[in-house]
């Protein structure tokens, strides 16, 4: 049922002339075009957020203030966080979903192609509002990505712009999620029962439900912030009978599931890549699905662990501590399953696999530091320190981002029709994998020794590890140029990928040409 590669460029006749150039990208309703747009947008945001991170690490290279003043520093940390979460990781995963879900379930396109276009084109508008506020008097938001009031009530117009930007991004995410759910539920090829869906599709299905559940909570919460700021309400101000801590409860009720929104699709990618290069089916498919679902459900009852130092009743602290520890169980199941998938396989180490293996190992370090932080008395010491910074960067950089890299190296041949340059890829991997640890590992020690997060200047005892982390940061930042080179090379040419460049890959996407035809599966494929 494989389709001959030469038909890839042929457009179905009923389209007549498709618009070209800019108009094509503005009006496209094609899942692959939109996937590409998402990925390009994320790349630009990654560069922006990355340059901010470099500036932060430059300022922290040594004690004293050298490059940026504290108010600009706070803007940079805040924007870096917002951009990397809402502008990079989330859009990248949506880009992957757009490209891959129809290919993996045997569908011609997404369920709502026009809404798909709209969900994407909202994002640049939101990004312009968010980043544009840097150039207004008073500068961009500086209250941390968590926007805690009353600090976020003190700020200027940029706070309102950020709230609006988050509203728009939230709307975009919800539309994207609805589209993904509908596509997965209704457009699977005949014979693809739920328990035969690829893991990536499963993880995205669960992620999409999480998005629909929590993005409205975020929207409501920041709307309350907006009215507190502009219309005299006092939801979060004690002076008018409100409570600043209520914001934190609402925010983290969104925020914790959000963390899993940022990692579940990564689990899906890694569960796809490892079996291919182990030349073995995924170990424990069923338990993977159940583990993903349990993690998603548990994510709704652990938000309090972000607030252990706020002061809560003992019973609440214990409840949140136990619930948080419990998450280690399904997460552990996943890690064990990945290792068991590699066990007694026939392993090769293409760049995609290198990143996937690094993910398993380094994400687990982030998981362990999460377990350490779950213990209330330990968390009392470590909350709001660099230990937490280390923890979530292990989970989001060596976790989510490395999984994204694995997915890129894995699927780029499918998308472009060319194999990636493994030599450059290996350099990219090794430089990134070493430098990222030089960057983030010492942050554990900084936090333990007592360095708070979000500070532009620090005591002399923290100088050495900060210098090391900064050097790691610069190398890691520079290494990402290699990725850009790999992508550009792969898009422009290279060894033809054929339908399937991998010996061990399974899945419908590999039955199509690379790149796949315009309407991916014009007739539904049949599963045996």
């Amino acid at each position, binding site marked *: 049922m494989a389709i001959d590669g030469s038909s890839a460029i042929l457009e179905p006749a009923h389209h007549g002339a498709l618009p070209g150039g800019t108009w094509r990208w503005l009006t496209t309703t094609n899942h692959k075009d939109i996937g590409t747009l998402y990925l390009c947008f994320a790349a630009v945001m990654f560069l922006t957020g990355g340059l901010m991170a470099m500036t932060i690490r430059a300022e922290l290279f040594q004690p*004293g203030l050298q490059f940026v003043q504290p108010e600009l520093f706070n803007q940079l940390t805040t924007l870096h966080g917002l951009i990397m979460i809402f502008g990079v990781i989330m859009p990248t995963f949506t880009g992957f979903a757009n490209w891959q879900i129809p290919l993996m379930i045997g569908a011609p396109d997404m369920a709502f192609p026009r809404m798909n276009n709209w969900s994407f084109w909202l994002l640049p508008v939101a990004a312009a509002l968010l980043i544009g506020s840097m150039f207004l008097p008073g500068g961009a938001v500086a209250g941390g990505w968590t926007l805690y009031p009353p600090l976020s009530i003190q700020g200027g117009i940029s706070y309102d712009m950020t709230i609006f930007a988050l509203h728009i991004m939230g709307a975009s995410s919800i539309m994207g999620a609805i589209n993904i759910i509908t596509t997965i539920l209704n457009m699977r090829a005949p014979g693809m029962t739920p328990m035969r869906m690829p893991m990536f599709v499963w993880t995205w299905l669960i992620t999409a439900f999480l998005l629909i559940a929590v993005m409205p909570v975020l929207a409501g919460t920041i709307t309350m912030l907006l009215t507190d700021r502009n219309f005299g309400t006092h939801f979060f101000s004690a002076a008018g009978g409100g409570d600043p801590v209520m914001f934190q409860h609402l925010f983290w009720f969104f925020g914790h599931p959000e963390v899993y929104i940022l990692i579940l699709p990564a689990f899906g990618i890694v569960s796809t890549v490892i079996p291919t290069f182990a030349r073995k*089916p995924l*170990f424990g498919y069923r338990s993977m699905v159940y583990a993903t679902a349990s993690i998603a459900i548990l994510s709704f009852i652990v938000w309090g662990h972000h607030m252990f130092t706020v002061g809560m009743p003992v019973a609440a602290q214990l409840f949140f501590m136990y619930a948080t520890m419990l998450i280690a169980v399904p997460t552990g199941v996943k890690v*064990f399953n990945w290792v068991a998938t590699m066990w007694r396989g026939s392993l090769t180490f293409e760049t995609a696999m290198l990143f996937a293996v690094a993910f398993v190992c380094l994400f687990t370090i982030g998981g362990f530091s999460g377990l*350490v932080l779950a*213990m209330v008395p330990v968390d009392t*010491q470590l909350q709001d320190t660099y230990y937490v910074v280390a923890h979530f960067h292990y989970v989001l950089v060596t976790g989510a981002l490395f999984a994204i890299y694995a997915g890129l190296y894995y699927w780029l041949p499918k998308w472009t029709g060319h194999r990636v340059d493994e030599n450059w890829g290996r350099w990219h991997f090794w430089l990134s994998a070493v430098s990222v640890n030089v960057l983030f590992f010492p942050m554990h020690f900084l936090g333990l020794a007592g360095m708070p997060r979000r500070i532009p200047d620090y005591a002399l005892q923290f100088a050495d590890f900060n210098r090391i982390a900064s050097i790691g940061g610069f190398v890691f930042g520079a290494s990402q140029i290699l990725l850009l080179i790999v992508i550009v090379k792969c898009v422009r040419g290279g060894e033809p990928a054929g339908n399937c460049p991998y010996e061990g890959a399974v899945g419908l996407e590999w039955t199509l040409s690379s790149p796949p035809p315009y309407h991916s599966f014009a007739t539904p494929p049949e599963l045996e």
Partner: protein
Amino acid sequence: MTCARACAVAVALFALSDRSGAEYRFNLPAPQSSVAHTAYDLHIIVLWVCLAIFALVFGAMFYSLLRHRKSLGHAAHPFHESTTVEVIWTTVPFLILVGLAWPATKAVLAQKDTGNPDLTIKITGHQWKWEYEYLQEGVRFLSVLATPSEQIGDRMEKGEHYLLEVDEPLVVPVGRKVRLLLTAADVIHSWWVPALGVKQDAIPGFIRDTWFRADAPGTYRGQCAELCGRGHAFMPIVVEVKPEAEYRAWLAARKSDQAAKAAESGRAFAPAELLALGEKIFTANCAACHQANGRGIPGLFPALAGSAIVNGPPQAHVGRVLQGKPGTAMPAFAAQLDDAEIAAVVSYERQSWGNHAEPVQPALVKNQRQ
């Protein structure tokens, strides 16, 4: 041979770390209270458990990565399910977690027990300084960063306790249970002293409590842990733990100082006196926002140089400082500064950076408070 080389590397690394001056610290600071002790021990336990699991799991993974390679001719064994194994690796971690939860629960219960304190101190977080009030003693003072701005701006060599030094530390007796009541005046702050194992957010409009009992006399340093604006890095905490007798002596001295200051506050001040005191007050309380040069930060904090309020009638100026401006970052200083201090800082603003308005006497401030 390899051992010798490893030793040489270790020595070289050690020498390197030594030469750089500061020591590398890999763990929590030495605990100085029972709460800090339990946190320290708990952390060590969890860390070992994690390391053991890590070694086991990734030992297996790296074994597989090395031996089960296609390049070594290893063929894949396509097994992909085993209920027994899966049940084991779901239940064993669960049991380990129960084992960890037990000591953690005991520690939480101890940590939350703020009953029967020997003394109670109310701590108020301000942008960007701490206010301490000894409730049973009627003693109250502000504690402000003591590091000179020249050090922060790299124009002077940094001192040993750079950014971790204050003008007036908190003083407590050793071995006594100190209960802390925390709140804040403007935004959320967090009072944190690692060696004492205390970190508690200070939330405007609410009071939260926590406690510590210091094991040994000494000076313990910490910082604000919750982002609170541009001065977040610059509001450290210093706690001096003293033997009971020294603590008593300190308290007595503090009380007589306070009484003397209160008596002074009503009298008339010479202009030079006002300006000298005013400059001190401004540096400690206002410069973080309005800047030492009085020019503020455009878009965030207004310039006082050339300001209409500062150069206008004294009542409006004093009023703004006493009451602040609700809804903005400008705090109310009525409760923080006494009449003389307000008069001094207002006079200083009125006569600095090219401003030429007449100075203000404490009597006017006193008048306006009513």
